[in-house]
Structure formats: C-alpha cells, structure tokens
C-alpha cells in the first residue's frame, strides 16, 4: 500500500520539471524489481536532485591520463542555467589553455579558442578539452527526458545495493551515447556507476561517482546533489582515463548576459 501511494505521488510529480514543484517521489529503498513507472520516477528523482532551479557555477579540476602520454590537467569553471538549458565551460588553468570555452545554446555546442580567436560548432561527442569527458558529464542531468529505461536487476556494487537500469535514447534526443547502463544506489538514489555504450552495444566508457555532496539551494528551496568526483575510464582506448574533482559549487545567480559568445570572448581579452 505504501509503495502504491509513493508511486502515485511519483506519477503526480512526473510532468513537473520546475523545482518550484515538490520533487518526484522515487521508489522506496531496498525495493525489488522496479516497474516502468517506478523507473521513470527514479530517473526523475535523479535528475531533479541534481537540478538547481536557479543558476549553478562550479570549479572543476580535470585530469587526463593517457597510456604512454604525459598527463594533462585543467581547471575550469562550469556555468549552468538549468531553467533555460544554458551551459558553459570556461577553462581557467593552465595559463596556456585559459580562456578556451564551450558554450551550449539550444542544441548547438560551440567551442571558442582565444589563441586563434575562432568559434566552431561541435557535436555532442566532443571530448571536452581532449579528455574522456563529454558535455553531459558537466551539464544538468536530463535522463528522464532523454532516455527510456528498462530494468536489469537489483545488484550489489561493493557494499551498496543498486538498481541496475538499461537506458535507450529517445528519438531525436541529442545525446553522446545512445545506450546507458546505470547503477543507482537503492538507498540514496544517487548514481554510483554508469556505462556508456554505442548503438551496437559496444562498451565505450565506465564512469564512477563515488561521492555526492548535498547542499542547500535557496533558489530551489531544496537540496541539490552534486557529484564530488567523477572517474571516467575509457573502455575503447584502455588505459585512458579522466578524473574530475568538483572543488567548489556556487548556487548564486549569475549575470544575465553570461551565456553568450560575447561574454566568453570577453574572458580572454
């Protein structure tokens, strides 16, 4: 009975994407196999918990390790305005890379390189800064909006009990990987592990989220969950890996005109 009530609450929350509404109800902890509706509700919960209704700014450390190559590290500021789906990354360190940036406007991902003063349109498969990370790794989570889930099973990941879901991209969804496998902590409902696959089923990346940080958001009036670390292992070029550490997050409002080419260009003048 309790599960049914929670499910109804979850369904009621379904059409609500704005954080002004109460968050959707996820399936109960330690549940068995999830129904389709429960899975969708779970994905909505995952999305909603990471979404801030206002603006978002984080300072990210990105470390790229490649087999037989020297390491590269970056520091970048990630800007998001979830309400209008705006997204931007501005590299700040090392000095030689400072001023480079990505800007997402609608379905366009642009890259700007101040050393040559040029903009270019890139695809969703763009390797951010040449690392194994993609735009989606830093952007707002839109799993429920972009994918259809199927249930694989209730599994153990280390000491954690996890729901294993297989997600297939919806038609016209502009995503880097058409198939995802997610391992979602049945207790905390945070993603702990993800595997990205090509349409053929070939495993492309394994991603771990070992730590989540819960922080209060004034604009949302609720908590926002942010992954503290993201560890990405390339499954095609074995040995290549990217480690992201979110060092700080600021949920205060950003200037109005920040998500424009002109603003990004101005950062390297």
């Amino acid at each position: 009975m309790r599960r049914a009530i929670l499910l109804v609450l979850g369904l009621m929350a379904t059409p609500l994407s704005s954080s002004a509404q109460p968050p959707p109800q996820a399936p109960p902890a330690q549940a068995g196999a999830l129904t389709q509706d429960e899975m969708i509700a779970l994905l909505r919960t995952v999305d909603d918990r990471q979404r801030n209704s206002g603006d978002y700014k984080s300072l990210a450390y990105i470390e790229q390790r490649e087999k037989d190559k020297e390491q590269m590290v970056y520091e970048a500021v990630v800007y998001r305005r979830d309400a209008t789906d705006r997204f931007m990354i501005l590299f700040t360190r090392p000095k030689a890379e400072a001023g480079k940036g990505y800007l997402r406007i609608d379905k366009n991902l642009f890259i700007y390189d101040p050393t040559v003063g040029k903009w270019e349109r890139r695809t969703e498969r763009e390797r951010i800064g040449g690392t194994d990370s993609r735009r989606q790794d830093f952007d707002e989570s839109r799993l429920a909006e972009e994918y259809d889930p199927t249930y694989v099973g209730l599994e153990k990941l280390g000491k954690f009990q996890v729901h294993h879901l297989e997600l297939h991209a919806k038609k016209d969804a502009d995503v880097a990987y058409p198939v995802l496998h997610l391992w979602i902590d049945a207790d905390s409902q945070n993603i702990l592990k993800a595997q990205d696959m090509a349409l053929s089923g070939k495993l492309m990346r394994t991603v771990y989220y070992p730590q989540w940080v819960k922080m209060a958001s004034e604009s949302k009036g609720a908590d926002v969950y942010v992954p503290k670390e993201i560890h990405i292992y390339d499954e095609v070029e074995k040995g290549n890996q990217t480690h992201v550490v979110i060092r700080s997050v600021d949920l205060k409002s950003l200037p109005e005109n920040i998500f424009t080419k002109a603003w990004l260009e101005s950062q390297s003048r």
Partner: protein
Amino acid sequence: MRGTGILFRMALRSLASHKVKSLIVGSIMLFGTALVVVGTALLDSVEAGMQQSITKSLSGDLQMYDSEAKDDLALFGGMAMGADDYGEVPDFARVQTVVEAVPGVEAVVPMGIGLATMSRGSELDRTLDALRQAARAGTIAGEQGQALVARLERLIDLLRTELINSRALLQDTTEVDAQIASIERARGDAFWAEFAADPVAALDFLDSKVAPAGGEGLLYYLRYLGTDLDQFARYFDRFRIVEGEPVPTGHRGLLINQRFADSQLKLKVARLLDDIHDAMTQNGARIATDPALTAKARQVASLYGAISLMLSPEDAHATETELRRALGITDGTLDTLLEALLTVDDANFAERYALFYDLIGPRITLYPYRVGDVVTLRAWTRRGYMKSVNVKVYGTFKFEGLERSELSGAANLVDLMTFRDLYGQMTAAQEEELRAIREEVGLEHVGRADAEAAFFGGDADSQVTGAEAFGTFDEMHPPTSDERSDERPSEAARRTITDETFTREQMLDGVVLNAAVILDRDAQGGTGDIEVARVRVQAAVDAAGLKLKVVDWRAASGIIGQFVLVVRGVLILAIGIIFIVALVIINNSMLMATLERVREIGTLRAIGAQRSFVQAMVMIETLVLGLLSGTAGAGLGAGIITWMGHVGLPATSDILVFLFSGPRLRPTFGASHLLIALVVILIVSLISTWYPARIATRVQPVEAMGDA
C-alpha cells in the same frame, strides 16, 4: 699452354661443325646476358631515381630519430595514418653539434612530422563569423559590412529554398519546419531592425537557429613537416616555391604543398574538372567511353549548388549575365545556367573548362586559403589535448620533376616553432604549473581494475556528504580576466602570434622528432658510401650518449623505400627461373652433342687423351660459346639501355613519376652491369656443361672402334 691452344681450336671447330646446336645454345646465352644487363641497369636506374626523389625532397641521405620509438620512421606516411610514434629528440642543438662534427657530414636539418586539421566552415558559418568580427570592430555599417549583410541575406534565401525542397521528401517535418520558421524570422524586417540595433544578439540567433541548417563545413587533414625552412630550401634541391614567397628567416609560416593542394584542398568541382581535363589531354581518354570519366562528368554537373552558394550577390548577377551570353541560354535561374555550364561531354569540355576558370574561378575561392591568409591549424598534442595555432600561408611549393606524383604531396612545410606549438612542447614553467595544480588537488590515482573496490568497498556507509566537502568558491575562484591580464598576452596579442619572430638559437634549442643528415656532396657516392657514413654517424651519436637510431634514406621512407628491394627480388627470381630453364636446355643440347661425338671422343681416348683432356674439351667449348654469346648479349643489352636512355621510358602513373624521379626514366649502364652479366652467363654455361662433360669422360676407346 700448347694443350690449351689445341683445346680452343677444337672448341671452335666443334662449334662450327654443330651450327644448329651452337645457334640454339648461343641464342639462349645471348638473350640471358642481355636480360641481365637490361634488368640490372634498369633497376639501378630506378633506384637512383628513387634515391633522388626521396633524398632531395624529404629525407636527406640519412635520418636520425629516437632509438626507443615505437614505430619505424615513415616520411612518406606510415601505417598509423598520422598517429605514428617516432619518439622525440629532446635536445636538437646537441645532436646537431655532435653529428656535424662527423667527417663527411655537411649539415643536419631538424624535422618533426605531424598531422593537423584545417577547417573551412560552411558559407553561412563563414559569413556569420565575418559579420561577428565586423560587429566587434564596429564596421557593420560600412561598405564591407553591408556587403556581408547582403551576402548573408542571399545565403538565407538559398537555404530557405533548399529546406522547402527537402521538406517535400520528408515524412517527419518537425525539425525542418522549426528551421524554416527560424529562417522566416530571419527574413523579416523586424529581425533586421533588431540586427541594426544589436547585431551580436541577432548573430547569436542566426548562429544557433539558422546556421545548423546550412550544413557542416569541410575538414582537411594536413600532414606537415616542421623544419628549419632556410636549411630545407638549401639542402633539398628539388624544393621550389610555386606561388608566394619563402617564409622569411625567423618568422612563423606555412608553405602548402601544391600537389597536396591540387589533389586534396581544391574545391571539388574544380578538382573533378581538372581530372577530366588531364585524362583527356594527357592520356587521350574520352568522357563517352571511359566509365571513370563519365562518372566524374556526371558528378560535376551535380555540384552547381556549391558554386552558387559561394557567389556574392554582385558576382552572382554578373555571372548570370555572362553565362547567359556565353551559353546562349535566355531563360532560367543562375542555378540552371551553372548546371548547364557543368554539363560536359567530349565535344564541349574544352570550352566549358575554359569558361569555368574564366568566369567562375576568379569569383569563388578555389582553395580554403589564399597566399597571405592566416589559417588555423589544429592538432592533437602529445598530451592528448587539441592545440590550435594561427599561421600565415606564405606560399605554395613543389618538388621539381615530381609534380605529378601523389607521393610528392606527402607533407606541407611549417617552421619549427609552429611545429612545437602543435606538438604541445611545454616549457619548464608550464610543467611546473601543471605540477602545482595537481598538488593543489592531491587526487589519489585509482586504476580501472581497483576502481569498484576503492570507491565502494570502504568503510563509509553512505556516499553522501555535506556541503562542507566543497571549498568556498570565492576562495578558490580563479583570478578574473582583469587580474590575469598581466600574466598572459591579450587576445589581440595572441592572435598576432604569427608576427612573432624567433632567433636561430631559439629554433634549434628544443624538441624535434627526427633530423635529416646531409652528406658532403664531394664525399657522397653510392649506397656503400652512405652505409659507411651511417655507421660513422651512429657511432658518433652512440659515443655521445644520444639515444638515436640512424637509418638510410631507404629505411626512412617507409614502405616506398622497400619498393626497389621488392622489385630487385622479383627480377632476381625471374632471371633465376629463366636461367634454370636455360641451364636445362643447354645441358640437354650439350648432352645430345656429346652422345653424337662418341666416336670422336673414343678415338681421342684411343690415341692417348686423358679423361681430364676430354672434360676440358667439352667445358671449354661451352665457355667459348658463352664468351662469344655473352659478349654479344652484353652488347645487345647495352644497346637496348642506350636506346631507352635516348628516348626515355615514360612514367605512365603517379607512382612511376616518383620512382623515375621525373616524367621519364633515362636509364644508363656501367661496366659493372656488363661484367656481372658475362660472369653470370659463364657460370651458368659451366654448370650446364658439367654433366655432359662427365658423360664424355666415360667414353671408352672400344666404343669408337665398335661403332666403326
């Protein structure tokens, strides 16, 4: 001595008395000798030609590179399509000092091969980019700005027509309807009023809503050789500037390989027209009968839209008027006229080809660059991130005599500093900066195999922590752009990096991937001399503790360099087979002749001739025949080579142009070719006569009497 004289006389008498046998065996020997002379002389000439092509274009006489490199150096392209790992030579200046001190070495030229991309956005993207720059400079209201606006309006109109046409073919029109709606907005007066008031915002709209419908641009892969351009021009004799000028000493710059530009960078419609033109004028091919040309002609006609997009409104109008006059077509749109122009057959091709280059060529950009332009090269650095560099195109170049060879387009040339930028060489300060950032974060590395145990097998029961896990943003916030401005060049300064000059010391002091060793022209000779020099240079670098591998030009050129070895192997095999056949024929002929001479040999034995005399008699007979036929064969071979050298063997394909080091091979021969052929034929003669001679020695005097 007297015995030998008798033997020779007997051999000559026997040859004269067995004319048919002598003629058959002699012809085989003559043909074999001529074949050896022609084959070896041709092969040596091809090898010499290839050596010229390779050493005078990219390799020099020797090449040096990291002895721990994963891949073998392949100057004309390796198996990894530009991702070959040749290691690196960290301190070129020291290498140069050590190697230039080796006797016989004239110079050491630094090099580094890489693969970059050069992009050309769609016409719409490029126009928007130009407008954005005009907006930034505040020149949109000016004449040039307004020309760009007019061009933009024309492109939007063309795009609208294209989308409306494609809509009719689609089942799901949601996306195209949204694009058409955006275009309709961009065509409205209200939008242009907004554009006048706030061009940047309007350009953002066009960039994100309209331009994606205009298609992707083109991406060109450009293999480049970073080098000391002055030394390269000095020591690589085939290098010639075609257009523009050499990169001034101490300046950054790019020289584009004309062959590469013509075969890879040139506008597709022009490339196809050139291909048809070359096939028709050089090889006499016809569009009607050559399926490849028919297909190309069909493709050309379908590319009129690409030209239409590139024309400015004024040029479009002028082209339309001129085409109407030239083609005698009174109705139809510009697209109709362009399609008519590009519909070619054997009868009209010459006229249409000329019209294309007279009327269209000057109004469109045939190449994604113009000499004097600054282009952006992008490459993956050795650390795996993308690096972009602006570099000025000073000109185009060719390797003289190899213009038609695809292989001669293997590399474009850039200065060494640009190469190092694209390679991602970091200074000590930059390395220190990376180390400091890493230390600041102190992330513990977890490998793939241990990840799950490390991340989810620990003591923590929850993966969730509070906000205190983050530092405050203000503390960690990177310096603002204003604060940074004293630390790094401004954007404007960065963009003028192409104007930066550098000293020779700066250029030589740093990493390269390989280096060409030019041997002293006087000391340099054949392959043997190069091998001696290679050993000497290798010894010198080893003694200096430099971890370098020294290889000759053949090994450095990759699979191309192995070509002559393969051909030589095939030739030796062919000659071997021919000689085995010859050996059997000669053997049989001599055996038959011996059996016919049983009476004569028996009589000789009866009057006291020893077995050794009989054996020598038969062997000398063949030797004399071999000597006479071999000399004649060598003469014939020499005559053939002389004739070939006079008329020249035409290089009928791209690869032959490279192997022949020009459009024709003019082979030569030397005494060694004649001598080798003669020795080979005499050895074959002796081997083939050994068995008949043994049979002859077994003839007993009584057999002669018995026959009597």
